[in-house]
């Protein structure tokens, strides 16, 4: 199915086509239509990154101890929630990882919610974007495992006792590779199915009924962003756990 170009993607393709093609060629990838290399999900991701940066810049400028504004209250609630979850799952020493968890949560949340805005679509609807987040998480928890445990992190893959290692290593490798796969498919399928269900009901029923499914999609967006972050916390806590 040929992708319908959003107005933002059209802007990028009209003015920045050469720039896009040169970035792609840096990675050795050739766009299927070299005159219009920007895909919808790339421009939507750039938009979300800009929105997140602007929101947090404005929030940071308006932080105040004695007269906090509404935005500060909302983000304090979210921050307390994330910090509480991180303390519960990773432990008190896991505060250093909170920056990654928070970034991941807000990025995925804003990406999921962008689809509700009329002329935009969620970049997480395409399998590439959740795959990117999942691969980033996979690299992050393994790197944090190496940083916390040194070379002893590889003992995690060897199972509880040394003589079970030849059996446990393939099992552990497969189960670790299945983690980014399941993270990707969970996020992608939830967002894709939410949009498809809304589209089907728009074709079937009048105005109020598809909006119920859109409301469900908004709830699922929050839930899936939370689940992604929660599972990341669980994986990081498993990786940085010190062997007793």
């Amino acid at each position: 199915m040929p992708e319908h170009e959003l107005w933002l993607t059209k802007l990028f393709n009209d003015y920045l086509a050469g720039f896009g093609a040169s970035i792609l060629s840096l990675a050795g990838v050739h766009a299927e239509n070299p005159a219009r290399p920007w895909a919808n999900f790339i421009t939507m991701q750039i938009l979300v990154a800009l929105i997140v940066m602007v929101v947090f810049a404005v929030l940071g400028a308006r932080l105040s101890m004695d007269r906090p504004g509404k935005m500060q209250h909302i983000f304090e609630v979210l921050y307390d929630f994330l910090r509480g979850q991180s303390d519960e799952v990773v432990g008190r020493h896991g505060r250093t990882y909170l920056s990654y968890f928070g970034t991941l949560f807000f990025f995925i949340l804003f990406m999921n919610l962008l689809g509700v805005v009329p002329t935009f679509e969620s970049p997480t609807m395409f399998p590439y974007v959740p795959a990117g987040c999942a691969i980033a998480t996979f690299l992050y928890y393994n790197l944090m495992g190496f940083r916390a445990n040194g070379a002893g992190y590889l003992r995690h893959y060897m199972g509880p006792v040394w003589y079970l290692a030849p059996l446990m290593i393939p099992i552990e490798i497969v189960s670790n590779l299945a983690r980014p796969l399941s993270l990707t498919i969970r996020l992608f399928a939830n967002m894709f199915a939410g949009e498809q269900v809304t589209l089907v009901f728009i074709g079937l029923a009048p105005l109020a009924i598809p909006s119920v499914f859109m409301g469900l999609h908004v709830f699922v967006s929050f839930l899936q962003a939370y689940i992604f972050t929660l599972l990341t916390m669980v994986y990081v806590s498993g990786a940085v756990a010190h062997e007793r």
Partner: protein
Amino acid sequence: MRFKTILILLALFAVAAPLFAQGGAAQGSSDKQWIYISAGFSMAIASGLCGLAQAKATAACAEGMARNPGAAGSIRFALILGLALIESLALYTLVIIFAKVG
């Protein structure tokens, strides 16, 4: 009673026999049709089993919260985690369907 059930099932299969008549008319695409049928069946089975599993999880959570209201926060956390993981199993089936159909 069991014999009657089997007879009814066989009668239903007989009623579905005209389905095979379509294969003769369009030989080239007769294999494609099974994709749609199996997609419907597999999604139904996946969703049904997922529904059963989530019902069990929710029932255990509700009972735990009723017995021990102080631990409601931890139980709710385990519930959300469990429900999302079970949900994702049904979604794997949906992804296969979207990959194969269309």
